[in-house]
């Protein structure tokens, strides 16, 4: 069973520490969600795992070092969906999803029938068939997120990093995308690491939450353990009430009287 282990991860940008001393273990089928106030380093942490920004410390997959892998090999293990994925004007949904096969192709090769088949399979699995010829730039926010997830699935990596997958979406699309991610990680045995903005939503699907503040993990555990009024007041500077609901803790900001 594939497992990602991160030890003592540290990210510096312009000599300033952005993320420090991160310890993290995620196995396939699990979903870990990183929360924290603006500027806490959530996106930087995800980008360092994706190899976009440099970091120090260990990133291991099943005990072997990710840093020694080529770009291609790394991408075969770890896929990444940006907060706002670039949707190139004029590119069809099919061509966009097919780009996910890049990690499995030699740089100058073109796709084999098998690659096309995988893209088709993912597209129909995500119910995107009706979009197949659409220009990706014309898709709505929710459709873009689904198409970007389809591209990441076509990459067929056991670990997927999702940077705020639902922030730009209304509640209907939000639910649709989160349900999709939840189904996929269970069915396909994918390890998911996401960041999330909305605290109540972050408690719904992930197995574990990591609260990041000023680059350090301050609390980690289940939604009930992390989403307490004390933690949120301390690290977000917000006064909130937390109500227990059958889906998970509900965080309600209080109004100053």
């Amino acid at each position, binding site marked *: 069973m594939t497992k990602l282990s991160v030890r003592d991860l540290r990210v510096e940008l312009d000599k300033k520490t952005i993320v420090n001393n991160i310890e993290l273990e995620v196995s396939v089928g699990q979903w870990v969600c990183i929360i924290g106030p603006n500027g806490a380093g959530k996106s930087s942490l995800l980008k360092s795992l994706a190899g*976009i920004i440099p970091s120090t410390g260990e990133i291991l997959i099943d005990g072997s070092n990710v840093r020694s892998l080529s770009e291609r090999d790394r991408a075969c293990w770890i896929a*990444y969906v940006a907060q706002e994925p670039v949707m190139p004007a004029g590119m069809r949904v099919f061509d*966009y999803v097919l*780009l996910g096969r890049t990690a499995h192709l030699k740089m100058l090769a073109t796709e084999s029938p098998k690659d096309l088949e995988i893209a088709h399979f993912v597209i129909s699995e995500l119910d995107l068939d009706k979009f197949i010829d659409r220009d990706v730039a014309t898709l709505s926010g929710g459709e873009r997120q689904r198409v970007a997830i389809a591209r990441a699935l076509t990459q067929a990596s056991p670990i997927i990093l999702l940077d705020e997958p639902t922030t730009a979406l209304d509640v209907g699309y939000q639910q649709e995308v989160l349900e999709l991610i939840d189904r996929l990680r269970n069915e396909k045995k994918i390890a998911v690491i996401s960041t999330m903005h909305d605290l109540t939503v972050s408690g719904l699907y992930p197995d574990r939450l990591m609260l990041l503040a000023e680059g350090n993990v301050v609390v980690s555990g289940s939604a009930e353990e992390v989403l307490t009024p004390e933690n949120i007041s301390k690290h977000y500077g917000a006064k909130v009430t937390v109500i227990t609901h059958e889906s998970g803790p509900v965080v309600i900001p209080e109004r100053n009287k």
Partner: protein
Amino acid sequence: MRTATARRISPFAWIISAVAVLFTLTLGVSIGAVSLAPLTIWSEISSNIFGTTSTSTGSESTIIWQLRLPRVLLAFVVGAMLASAGCAYQGTFRNPLADPYLLGVSAGAGLGATIAIFNGSGGSRFLLPLAAFAGAMGAVLLTYSLGRSAIAGRSSTALILAGVAVASLLTAIQTLLQQQNTDKIREIYAWVLGRLSTSGWNDLAIITPYILVCIIILLRYRRVLDVFAVGDEEALTMGLPVARARGAIIIAASLGTAAAVAVTGLIGFVGIIVPHILRLIVGNSYRILLPLSIIYGGIFLVLADILARTILAPQEISIGVVTALLGAPFFLFVLGSSKNGSVT
């Protein structure tokens, strides 16, 4: 389930393109001070290649083989190179206004040619192209090393800015040299504006191997150019070695451009006009755009050369002036219609 395949050029488009190439080349050979009938041209060419009987006279044969054909083919090869280099730059920099001279090729070649002309090598069919080529490649290497070290990341903006700086510096040096040697300005100017007048097959033979290799390399990167469309960060996480791929594309495009510039001087706008007209027709996928840019870049420059030869006949206009007259307004049109200057 609906099936789709990866983007490729349709058989219909291939046929249209082949017909267009044959038509344009024939037109290019047929038009001039002495008009030649297409049939005469083809019977002459077929007689040389297949040993059939030719209907052309001796002087017609000389015009075809010594004057028109090498010039038309040179125009085609150079146009193909400039358009495909522009197309490749636009893809790898995700910038619709990138052109083959982006990284200082033109300024470097200009300086090289100027130095050669001052040293009395301007008339040399051998030294002038060599100096221009050396200048162009030197400029690209300078830009590349500056751009890469300026920002240690993968920022392509740093590279473009370095190109602007290197081009300004080299142009300033060239101007300084010119001012000290005003009697050669006319000669330099003729080179800068671009010319396709050839000495038979020599120029074509010199540059074709370089250009062929560069075009083949660029063609092999056509899928990679589509991956670049999602931006460096996402392309990297999809497994593309972004810096290495961009480096290879830049080197192939610059080397080919430098070879073309060395022989013909500066012919502008081909690398912008041709890929953009094609974008409007066939979309933005480089799997289609790049091969078609090669074909229609060649066609475009042959047609531009026909104009250069005929507008003020018997006088000949510099081909660079013709492409600039067509290209500058088009450049503004592209600029105006591109949203935020970033339509790719």
